[in-house]
């Protein structure tokens, strides 16, 4: 009986705590794993973007799906590590407190940890002016908000500058602002490096596209298929202005 009980407990633990894992990999496809980690991304959208990339690069769709999965896992690992280091449990309510993002120079960007129910992707937004942020948020798309009113959790956030000419910084911020109210939100982080600069986009794509189009800078620490907020934050050519 005891043996059975131990077996049951082990079976449960494997099922409950190791998904997604190498163990599950045999049964669940990379596509399913990706969609589990990105539930707002539709299967059709994922497959059509993978097919388009495969056509251009000659890579197989399976190889691309594996790469996407690995990039997501890498981002997730980074997120968990940072969370452990910060010692945060979940809500700020009674823990570390909150701060206003505050002012900075045009073309700089801020990063903050941003939790959804299934993954902490982080979030980035760009300074259009010292007192206005332009950022892409779910459903609304690209919007503006006052830097004094935008609140983030203390200790999780930072302001960074991009090492380039002031005209590139100005033009990047102007371009991002020109997308306000025009570009809707996209839940596709996984292949957003290859989607159009014009059209639906998420927060990291907005900042990445702004500097790709203005200065030909690649604000992505590890390249690949998707540019995530932490990829922008850690990109070479960015410098810490201040921790928030």
């Amino acid at each position, binding site marked *: *009986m005891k043996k*059975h*009980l131990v077996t*049951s*407990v082990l*079976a*449960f633990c494997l099922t*409950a705590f190791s998904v997604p894992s190498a163990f599950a990999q045999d049964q669940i496809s990379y596509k399913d794993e990706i969609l589990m980690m990105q*539930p*707002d991304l539709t299967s059709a959208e994922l497959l059509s973007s993978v097919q388009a990339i495969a056509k251009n690069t000659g890579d197989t769709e399976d190889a691309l799906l594996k790469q996407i999965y690995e990039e997501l896992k890498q981002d997730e690992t980074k997120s968990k590590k940072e969370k452990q280091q910060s010692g945060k449990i*979940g*809500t*700020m*309510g*009674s823990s*570390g*407190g*909150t*701060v*206003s993002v*505050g*002012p*900075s*120079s045009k073309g700089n960007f801020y990063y903050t940890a*941003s*939790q*959804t*129910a299934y993954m902490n992707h982080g*979030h980035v937004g760009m300074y*259009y*002016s*010292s*007192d*206005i942020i332009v*950022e892409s*948020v*779910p*459903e*609304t*798309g690209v*919007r*503006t*908000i*006052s*830097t*004094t*009113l*935008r*609140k*983030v*959790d*203390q200790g999780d956030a930072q302001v960074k500058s991009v090492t380039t000419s002031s005209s590139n910084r100005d033009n990047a911020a102007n371009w991002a*602002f020109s997308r*306000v*109210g*025009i570009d809707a939100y996209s*839940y596709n982080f996984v292949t957003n490096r290859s989607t159009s600069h014009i059209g639906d986009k998420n*927060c990291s794509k907005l900042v990445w596209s702004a500097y790709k189009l203005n200065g030909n800078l690649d604000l992505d620490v590890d390249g690949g298929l998707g540019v995530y907020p932490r990829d922008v934050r850690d990109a070479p050519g960015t410098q810490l*202005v*201040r921790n928030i």
Partner: protein
Amino acid sequence: MKKIIFFSLLIILIGGLLYKMYWSQNLSASLTIENEAIKQGKFLTDKKAVLYFSTTADQDMDGKGVSLAVFINDKGDADAFKMKGLELGSVAASQNEVLLVDKNKIRLVGDTYKEFGMDKSQYTGERTGYLEKEKLYFTVFNTGVGANGGYNSNIFFGNKEGFHKENIPHYIAASGVDQDNIIVLTQNTQNEEFHIRRVMLSKKDMHTRDILKINHSKEADFSSLSPILSDEQFYYFVGQKTLGEVKETMDSDIVLYRINKKTHTQDEFNISTYRNEKNITAHYPFNIKNSAHLYNNVCYYANGLGEVFAFDTETEKVIKKFSMKNVRKDGVRHNEELFYNDDQLYVVRHDENLKEKYYIEQYSLTQGKKIEDIKIRGLNDILKSIKGKSIYSYDFKMLK
């Protein structure tokens, strides 16, 4: 075999419960106001205060952003009514009634309960209020750029009989109420021009009137730090002038702007000066939208360092009237909020050393001293129960 199945199910159940406890934003029943309870005619009878909290728009990726209207009853007990998220949302109050707004619903809670859906979700609030003469509530949103390329700030206004939607075609940097009109400070983000405009509401119509352009030097960046206040002669608002580039430190002046309604003469009065300031957001008010107040010909402004400044509208002198005690100087907040009513200033405070963590301080503005502490029970438990998302305070009102 049956035992194995039983234990397996038990473990799955425990696992499920643990998952739900960690990730779910559902509040426990003891902390929650049920939909039916808030619809009771006497719901507000024993409520003395309300706080508004919400997740930010970027956390709505899974559609599970939340906002909370936390009501404090006469005994000091806190209960939360859960809604969908609305960053920078707020609460409007009139006699025995409050207006609650989330991203796609307007609720009137009081003697009778009414709710109204919005045709399109909104994600960033600007201001809510009540216009006594027309008996109209309003809620203004920072909506975004419209199809025509101009900036849109949608406004819904109405009462139990229904709400109408209009659009203020500007980005709003600050706002306030002047008797029965809404006053907005609009910002043209392309050329950095600021205008004062009047928004007039009737039951089914909205009209806007341009009043004047603000004299603003482009050598300094401007950020509003207060609502727009007005008396018979003047409009007032507080703003920050940022001097030079902001790096790890910042130079700025905090200025009271005064505009004559008839002559349009504009004056500036210095409130405080910061040079080489490291904690650059520390002086930001606990709530920019509720930071200033006019009472008995004195304009009060409370900053985030706990300093309350008073501008005498007759002598034109600014003094530091008093300072709150034990206010953090590093800009880190724990849901501190402000509410003025005549001679009273109420401040939601946080003290990690207290069992209940949160309480309200009541100050007399004219006496420049604290009158009493008002206890709150259960607010910390409510905020702690929101897991997996960060929730921030955006408004506070005393109802009695």
